[in-house]
């Protein structure tokens, strides 16, 4: 794995991917933009879940009641037997220089490397509000949290245009969840805080 990669794909489907983090305990932030670089295309996704578990399903994590440095000094084997992984929902892909805001024809290949997206890539991905619809597809985590986190992350790359971006996003949200007043306010509150 090269230095810049943050993970490796260990599971994928047409709509989602699962990757193992390069470093234990360090997964890309919730709601952040990541990409999988493959030979002919790059697939873009938003992180919606991260977890750390035992490598062996038959072995469970148990409390040691020790601070981390002491755990590393006295139980070094634990850290080799845990892994951190993250899941992301696909929002688009780029092929032959053209960015498409819909699902790629093929899922990401296993063992491809995962990277964090650059600021310019995030701008291009969020120029079209379609990614919000992709986030609505996720049902395993609270949607309001995911959408709000993604918007907070995206807004940071807009600098002076941040307000304009959020207003646009808000308008799109009204279209998407307008009939669910509570969801809408929840998202807006979380974005503003």
């Amino acid at each position, binding site marked *: 794995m090269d230095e810049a990669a943050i993970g490796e794909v260990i599971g994928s489907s047409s709509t989602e991917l699962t990757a193992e983090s390069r470093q234990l305990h360090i997964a890309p932030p919730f709601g952040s933009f990541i990409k999988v670089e493959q030979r002919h295309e790059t697939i873009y996704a938003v992180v919606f879940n991260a977890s750390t578990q035992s490598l*062996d399903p038959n072995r469970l994590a148990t409390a040691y009641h020790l601070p981390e*440095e002491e755990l*590393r*000094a*006295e*139980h*070094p*084997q634990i*850290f*080799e037997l845990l892994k951190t992984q993250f899941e992301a929902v696909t929002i688009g892909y780029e092929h032959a220089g053209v960015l498409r805001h819909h699902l790629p024809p093929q899922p990401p290949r296993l063992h491809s490397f995962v990277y964090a997206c650059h600021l310019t890539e995030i701008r291009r991905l969020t120029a079209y509000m379609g990614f919000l619809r992709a986030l609505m597809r996720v049902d395993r985590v609270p949607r309001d949290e995911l959408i709000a986190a993604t918007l907070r992350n995206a807004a940071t790359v807009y600098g002076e245009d941040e307000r304009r971006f959020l207003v646009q996003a808000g308008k799109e949200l009204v279209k998407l969840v307008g009939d669910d007043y509570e969801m809408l306010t929840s998202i807006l509150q979380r974005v503003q805080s």
Partner: protein
Amino acid sequence: MLDLAQVSQQIASMAAAQQLVSEDLRQRLKTAHAQLQLESSRLATFLAKLDRSRMSWLLAEIHEPLDCFYPLPVRPQAVTVVATDGSQITPSHHEVMPAFLLNISTIVLHYGTGERAVFSSTPTLFYREEDLYMDYGGERVQVVGDLLGMRRTLMEFQSLVQLATAAQDTGHSPCAMADGSLILWQLEGRPPDYQQTTLQAYLACLEQMHKRQIPVMGYISRSRSRDVLNTLRVGLCPEATPDSDRCPYERDSQPPCAAIVGLTDRTLFEGLLRPGERTQVFTSASRVLRHYEAHRIGFCYLHVGSEVVRLEMPIWVATNPGLLDLVHAVAYDQAQKGIGYPVALAEAHQHAVVRGAERDLFYNMVENVLRRRGVRTSLSPKQSRKRIMTV
């Protein structure tokens, strides 16, 4: 199919019988402890009697009073524990090919430094003529059963030495742990050519450890050894020169030494040692050790909290206070960390073991590859039948 209803009645009977045995054992233990105290108070006399006696039993060589116990030393902050284990997928004439697989795991645990632990497991496939057969008593025999087990033991031990020396080379203070005995008693009675080649390889490992002054121990849980207990039986014998071949009490229903039969060294010391304490280091009189020379094996019993274990070590570890203390401290610490059984040995085992499904996968893989290359393979009818049961 197991008829559990039938078995449950038998289990109840067994439990009832065991209860009687426990009562009896308590009484025997009292007798054994009393004898131990007695012999400890008259060590010179005891040693002289042991020296005179002619027993067919294994008798521990005692150096100090039996009630001499040593407290737990402080474990050095920085120490590296290394362990190996192995497992095998053995050839069966029901399977496709006589090849066998030995899977050796290595574990390196650095303590006190925060360095990462290192695990590995290395499978080796043996399929060449010279690997599958060996010289044994002047004949060429197939490497199966005990012979295969011994080959695996050697590979594990050689791997252990490599691990330990590599750790030392990178500036660490290693302590090597082996699961089981360091005494190759299985070699006794085997053909000389086999004994010699095996011992040569094994002792070369011990020699390397000796040269590097790296302590190595054999950790035996639930030991059934009775070397020390047997000395107490000699003590109980009314004869001035006990001789097991000329025992005048043989025909008696209860010869004097039978009063403590049924106990083991472990049960003997369980009631005497406190957690963390160890006994003196006895020297083993096992016959095969006459070939070990400078690496004769000593042993002690250590209370690790959950049980009393037998620790074996070469005599050059036993007679070096620094190395002996390290072995003592590490063995106890490992058992604590592993909630009753050493972490290093448990991890080594986990990484070596090949589960049933993996075994089947291995043979499927062998079969597929051979078939693709046009090599004729055939599964025995018995094996095919076992795989596909129909109604």
